[in-house]
């Protein structure tokens, strides 16, 4: 019988027979830990294995992105624990200058089609954007993976999601993603892999694929893949050194647990209202909500394309007095592109606060927290209570965040 994308990747990394529901031992091409999770990985590793070497240091990395550079003593200590361990064993560290680990793994070519990559980041399945089986795991799992190069995994079922029609001109990849968060909720693809088909998915470039795949976690899914490609994706992946990029396709006779058809014809901007990424409404129903701050960045919307979209709205305009607009590029490479293209100046002159690369507001990171009652509109992926501080957080596209910060209330660019 034919195989789905996830079944193909898993079969290429195990000697066990692959079928949904079966538990296999999976070879891991890349295993990583962050400044969060990392110190516990080191602690477990040294307690269990003493001074023994990791299975393969060339496949093992640390990536620091949560609190970069450290703004608390505890994070500073934790990062240094990881650095010391890395030096001792000859493990490469993508340090606090580099930005978000999952994005760095794409830029460095560690995550490629048909690879398996794990890390202490629940959004590691973002790597589905480049056809890689990325998976977030806890520190026990990762310590074991550092030592053995493998883990156990239950082969997930796959759901085929077919997007019918074409979204309207104002809809971005984030709007499509938020629409999916609402329609699929936390049940349809829960504990399953998803494959997205149809022109709205196939037409997404790399940044758009990253946005969509980053929120599979918020849909409770294992990972999402977009097997069909368009010309922009091939151009972008070539620019990152991925020659002849071809994501895996499923076999024509692959077996799906479910096939879901969704009509995206004429889809407009969407906003997730607090306190759930799945509580998504059309922008029209949320318009006018007074805000105190905006955030553009995160693993979901931290690529150059996202800042370009925001800069085109902010250029020559000023963020409304009293509103904070926090901008965090995903990686150093993105930051460099913003510098060299002049987009950084556009953002700066609008009044935005441009920070160094990293995760931004999640996990009490470096981009500032919301205080009690502070209403934020963010391009991030989570608005659970307490995730970005104490204030209520709305999730939206870079375009909507930019327009909202100019107006002082949730707004679309067409209202300016």
């Amino acid at each position, binding site marked *: 019988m034919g195989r789905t994308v996830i079944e193909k990747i898993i079969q290429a990394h195990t000697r066990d027979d692959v079928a949904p529901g079966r538990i296999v031992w999976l070879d891991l091409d890349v295993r990583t830990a962050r400044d969060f999770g990392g110190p516990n990985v080191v602690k477990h590793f040294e307690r269990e294995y003493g001074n023994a070497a990791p299975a393969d240091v060339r496949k093992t990395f640390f990536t620091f992105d949560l609190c970069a550079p450290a703004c608390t003593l505890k994070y500073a200590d934790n990062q240094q624990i990881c650095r010391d361990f890395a030096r001792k064993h000859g493990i490469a560290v993508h340090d606090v200058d580099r930005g978000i680990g999952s994005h760095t793994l794409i830029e460095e070519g560690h995550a490629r089609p048909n690879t398996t990559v794990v890390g202490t980041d629940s959004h590691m399945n973002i790597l589905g954007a480049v056809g890689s089986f990325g998976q977030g795991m806890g520190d*026990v*799992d990762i310590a074991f993976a550092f030592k053995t190069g493998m883990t*156990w995994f239950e082969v997930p079922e796959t759901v085929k999601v077919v997007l019918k029609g074409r979204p309207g001109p104002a809809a971005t990849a984030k709007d499509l993603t938020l629409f999916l968060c609402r329609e699929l909720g936390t049940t349809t693809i829960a504990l399953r892999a998803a494959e997205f088909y149809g022109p709205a998915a196939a037409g997404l470039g790399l940044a758009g694929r990253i946005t969509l795949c980053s929120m599979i976690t918020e849909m409770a899914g294992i990972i999402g893949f977009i097997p069909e490609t368009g010309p922009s994706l091939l151009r972008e992946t070539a620019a990152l050194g991925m020659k002849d990029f071809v994501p895996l396709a499923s076999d024509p006779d692959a077996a799906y647990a479910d096939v879901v058809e969704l009509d995206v014809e004429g889809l407009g901007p969407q906003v997730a209202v607090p306190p759930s990424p799945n509580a998504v409404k059309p922008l029209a129903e949320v318009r006018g909500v007074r805000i105190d701050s905006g955030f553009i960045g995160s693993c979901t919307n931290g690529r150059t394309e996202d800042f370009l979209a925001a800069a085109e709205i902010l250029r020559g305009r000023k963020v409304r007095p009293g509103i904070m607009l926090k901008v965090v590029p995903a990686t150093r490479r993105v930051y460099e592109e913003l510098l060299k293209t002049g987009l950084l100046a556009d953002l700066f002159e609008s009044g935005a606060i441009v920070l160094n690369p990293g995760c931004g507001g999640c996990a009490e990171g470096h981009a500032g927290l919301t205080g009690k009652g502070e209403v934020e509109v963010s391009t991030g992926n989570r608005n659970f209570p*307490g995730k970005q501080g104490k204030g209520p957080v709305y999730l939206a596209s870079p375009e909507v965040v930019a327009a909202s910060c100019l107006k002082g209330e949730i707004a679309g660019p067409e209202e300016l």
Partner: protein
Amino acid sequence: MRATTIRGRVWVLLDASGRLIEDIDTDQIFHNAHLHLTDIAQMGQHALGNLEGWKDFSKKVIAGDLVVAGRNFGAGSSRQQAVDCFVALGVAAILAPSFSAIYFRNAVNSGFPVLRAAGLAELVGEGKLRTGDEVEVDATAGRGRNVGLGIDFAVEPMSGVQSDIYKAGDLFRYGKTRR
């Protein structure tokens, strides 16, 4: 070898309207303000510390108690502390209709019993499972029983790997016996 029959008093995680809380995410279980903690002994006090109505859970729970939650328990981040905080308090098991994938793995790898029971919401809704009830769960046979009320309910038996890791103690112990 550890027993796969677990008996204890349950805490049923209800919201203000008396419904079993679904989609409890890791920031409600173990808030990101405490992510820097690496000593398990310090983690228990923060368990459910950001879940409305349950912020004092760590003060009320007694070692050996069980927790019953709604579907998709442990959504969100990959933090192991969201499992370890219950281990630190001596919680015997967590029962829910479903768990997030990462949370479930983290618990299995720590040898902490997370057990899926599809009918919990109905059971709770009908008043057949309440906080304080004595419950016995056989994780091998897949049986649950509210001892006081004499009501049985189905529990998904531990999978092969979950059971093996649990019996070995944790993933590390299991890994050392495996090869």
